[in-house]
């Protein structure tokens, strides 16, 4: 019982943070929802209805923790087809039917559905969806509304539209196109600007705010009509009362027809795959490393989809970009999803007329950017680095999806993957003979080590990966696991890719995940192993040192340290730091360290968030390994944002008799009294008299860094000096028995 009461207490403690996070998410959900619905040729409000219904229902019924639900970008491709072939009213009926099917999938425990598809094929399919979105919306972004037959035609017409922009005679159109280009520029350059006040509002909301402000400027100050052509303004946002009173009529009459069910199945397929992939990706972002119950989520999403369909919304799916924004803003449970829905309702009730001041091209720029992210050349490059055959799978899926439809596309992807596997192994019997065999053995070693051992026989590919996954899921993530492929003749990229993410999850939750027995495989054939994927990237760094690198080398020599320019292999020593719980370390390079490797200065590249909310950051950090235990804490400079955070439930730990320190610094930690003891006069004076750094302790090591960019030579020297003196100060502080 006390356990339960504790949960409730924790819930209320985290509630302010979640409401804050829900608010930020709703800022991004509003423009995205409007845009996605319009891109699928539905009334724009449908997107908001979807997000609201999804947020309200799934937050209560779902089985995940930090996900946000709403209209998904994958749905655009299929819904577009449904609306054009069936008409709007029958599309609502199809959405309701797909909701029923999704519930059925949940009950059939098909949460593993997404594991049956090769990862390159899924990526190809998503890229195709990205191109469909991009192709269609690009023209609207440049104020050139087209209606063409196939999604491919839209892509081919892009150059024409670009040339056409310079020939507009109507100034209304010119302004509209400018709004679109400006909005796209905001989307592109926003992640590059690391200003925390600017970052407080997500990029899509900046677009909305700026365009509404622009429109008011013309109305109130310039006293002239908005120069953007009225044709390209967002229209069809009914006031809140109308949404409730005027429900759409559903047309179930084509229920017996073939195209209807094709639509239902493709909607269901995409909705469930998108949700499942998002759930999987978001679980990786969750700082608390909880596991989502994807079957329960499917049931909840299905139910929400039915509700949303009846109210005039589209499919409710779990969405990755918004969920990652949620995690980054401190969302920790489903109340964030709920509050994001509530905020959306408030926005619509209060501001529904203001929304009509948004120019369409600006809204569509958000979608063009989303589409581009799904099909970015970076993705193609990454797949190519895994192997040529993956690129073949990727492009087959992509083109079949574009030319035919999504279901055929993904099936083609599966088919070509299987053919490639057979050709690579020169044996079809390896697959046919062993596909039904339970090829995974898992046991907990009762011998000396008490770890889990998983042995895989025959072959392991997307065809039977679910068996391996089932076993791996049965292992608590804080345990040690060894996966042995030595008896396995073939392991495909899908499996390696997934194992790689298991590795991350296990390491972050304090376990250990090791894959062994693959040494022989590489020699036998050229399988793409996610593990080996890193090799091609290394070459660039090793060859010629930049000027900064040679200077670093000199500094290292001066300080009697070693210097290595190439990427470090062990990236996991940072996992235990709070700062990295929701961030992923991509690479560490340019390391300077002393002989014992207790004092390491390095450049790091890490990312936070996923998909369009993903940001890559490069910075310089200092890692000091301490000989003694100190309390865990985070120390940063006190700023306006921290005061905002304080409202959301973060607490600054005050140190007695040091008002100046309390005012200037922001100290966080779990164990208040121990931290207060630890920060004695010496240490406080040290921090007070030195430049600001972000200092974080994880108990036995320190992480020190200042700016979220790579440090210059002078800054590195300063960081080195600061770190050295900090270590000495802490050594004397910790020598006193503060940890009783």
């Amino acid at each position, binding site marked *: 019982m006390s356990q339960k009461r504790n949960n409730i207490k924790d819930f209320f403690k985290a509630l302010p943070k979640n409401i804050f996070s829900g608010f930020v998410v709703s800022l991004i959900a509003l423009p995205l929802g409007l845009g996605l619905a319009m891109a699928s040729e539905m009334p724009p409000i449908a997107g908001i209805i979807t997000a609201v219904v999804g947020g309200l229902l799934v937050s209560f019924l779902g089985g995940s923790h930090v996900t946000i639900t709403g209209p998904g970008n994958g749905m655009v491709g299929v819904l577009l087809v449904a609306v054009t072939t069936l008409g709007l009213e029958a599309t609502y009926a199809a959405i309701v039917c797909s909701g029923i099917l999704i519930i059925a999938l949940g009950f059939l425990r098909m949460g593993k559905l997404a594991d049956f598809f090769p990862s390159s094929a899924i990526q190809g399919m998503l890229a195709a969806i990205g191109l469909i979105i991009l192709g269609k919306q690009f023209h609207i972004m440049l104020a050139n509304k087209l209606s063409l037959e196939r999604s491919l035609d839209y892509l081919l017409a892009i150059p024409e539209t670009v040339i056409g922009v310079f020939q507009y005679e109507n100034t209304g159109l010119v302004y509209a196109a400018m709004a679109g280009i400006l909005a796209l520029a905001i989307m592109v350059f926003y992640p590059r600007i690391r200003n925390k006040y600017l970052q407080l509002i997500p990029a899509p909301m900046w677009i909305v705010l700026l365009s509404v402000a622009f429109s008011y400027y013309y109305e109130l100050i310039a006293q002239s009509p908005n120069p953007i052509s009225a044709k390209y303004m967002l229209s069809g946002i009914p006031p809140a009362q109308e949404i409730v009173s005027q429900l759409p009529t559903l047309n179930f009459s084509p229920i017996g027809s073939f195209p209807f069910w094709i639509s239902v199945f493709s909607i269901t397929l995409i909705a469930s795959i998108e949700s499942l992939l998002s759930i999987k990706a978001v679980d990786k972002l969750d700082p608390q490393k909880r596991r989502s119950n994807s079957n329960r989520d499917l049931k909840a999403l299905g139910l929400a989809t039915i509700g949303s369909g009846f109210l005039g919304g589209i499919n409710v799916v779990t969405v990755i970009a918004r969920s990652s924004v949620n995690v980054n803003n401190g969302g920790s449970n489903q109340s964030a999803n709920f509050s994001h829905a509530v905020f959306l309702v408030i926005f619509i009730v209060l501001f529904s007329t203001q929304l009509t001041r948004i120019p369409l091209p600006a809204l569509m720029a958000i979608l063009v950017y989303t589409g581009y992210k799904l099909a970015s050349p970076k993705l193609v490059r990454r797949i190519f680095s895994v192997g040529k055959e993956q690129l073949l799978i990727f492009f087959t899926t992509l083109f079949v999806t574009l030319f035919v439809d999504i279901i055929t596309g993904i099936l083609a992807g599966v088919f070509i993957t299987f053919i490639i596997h057979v050709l690579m192994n020169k044996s079809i019997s390896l697959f046919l003979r062993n596909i039904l*065999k339970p090829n*995974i*053995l*898992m*046991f907990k070693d*009762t011998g000396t080590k008490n770890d889990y051992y998983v042995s895989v026989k025959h072959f392991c590919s997307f065809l039977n990966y679910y068996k391996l996954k089932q076993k791996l899921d049965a292992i608590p993530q804080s345990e040690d696991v060894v996966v042995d492929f030595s*008896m396995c003749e073939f392991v495909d990229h899908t499996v390696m890719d997934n194992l790689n993410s298991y590795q991350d999850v296990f390491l972050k939750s304090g376990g250990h995940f090791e894959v062994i027995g693959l040494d022989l495989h590489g020699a036998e054939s050229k399988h793409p192993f996610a593990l080996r994927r890193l090799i091609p990237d290394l070459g660039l760094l090793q060859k010629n040192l930049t000027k900064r690198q040679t200077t670093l080398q000199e500094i290292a020599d001066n300080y009697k340290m070693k210097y290595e320019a190439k990427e470090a292999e062990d990236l996991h020593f940072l996992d235990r730091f709070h700062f990295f719980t929701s961030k992923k370390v991509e690479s560490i390079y340019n390391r300077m360290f002393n002989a014992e490797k207790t004092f390491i200065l390095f450049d790091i590249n890490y990312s936070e968030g996923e998909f369009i909310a993903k940001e890559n950051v490069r910075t310089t950090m200092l890692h000091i390994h301490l000989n003694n235990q100190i309390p865990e804490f985070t120390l940063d400079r006190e700023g306006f944002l921290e005061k905002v955070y304080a409202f959301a439930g973060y607490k600054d730990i005050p140190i007695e008799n040091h008002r100046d320190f309390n005012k200037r610094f922001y100290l966080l930690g779990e164990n208040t009294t121990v931290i207060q003891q630890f920060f004695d006069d010496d240490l406080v004076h040290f921090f007070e008299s030195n430049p600001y750094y972000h200092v974080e302790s994880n108990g036995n090591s320190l992480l020190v860094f200042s700016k979220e960019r790579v440090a210059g030579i002078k800054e590195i020297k300063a960081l080195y000096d600061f770190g050295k003196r900090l270590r000495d100060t802490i050594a004397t502080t910790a020598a006193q028995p503060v940890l009783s």
Partner: protein
Amino acid sequence: MLFNSKLILIHVGNPSEEKTTTFQEILAPFFIDGLTVDIVYEPGKPVESILKSVDAKKIDLLILGALKRENFFKYYVGSIARKITRKAKCSVLLLINPSVERIKCKHVVVNGLKDEKTEQAIKAAFFVGSALQAEQLTIVEEITQQEVAININDDKSLRRANLKKEKLRRQEDSRINNIVEAIPIKHKKNLTLRTQPIFGKRGYSIGHFAQVARADLLIMNSPNKSGFIDRLFPHDLEHILTELPTDVLIIQ
């Protein structure tokens, strides 16, 4: 010799002087150690004739050579050995690595299924293990997914499933311990005993385990012949027989 028993060679085919001398030559070194041999010539189809002589001579242990997964022998393993194993009324030893020099059998794996015959199998394993001077004996308890009966969805169900597994493991351990206690000390003293619960498909996973644990001999219960369908299709053994991870001894 090791078991103080009589060797009966069954040759499928017609008797001839030539064959007899060949056999005598092969076996010559063993006669010194006091081997008694009986050569039976049984013409006809391999499976039936072997089975017939097994009955006629009241044989206790039938030794069959079989090769691991090779095309030429696949027919043999997949068909004759399997048919014999299925129908034989005696224990069967399938050898996959027959060699002139005896390779020392170090590690014996035996199944610890919840079955009436298990006790017998474990007893036999101790007997054979000590006779072959093996160093380690591992009793493998196979726990099927159905027994755990908890679907793992999230952290909560994972914790429940692990508790259930732990409970099952303790139950199995105590059951096995009861059996082991009844084994005479002289068979037990030279063997390191280990029990290992594994979670997987019954019959199949134990073969996989034997392979992983680099066992030299796998001892299995004979399939249960209570039902008519089981008699027709012994699925537990089927898996082992198609893949023959190690030498297999099937106790009848």
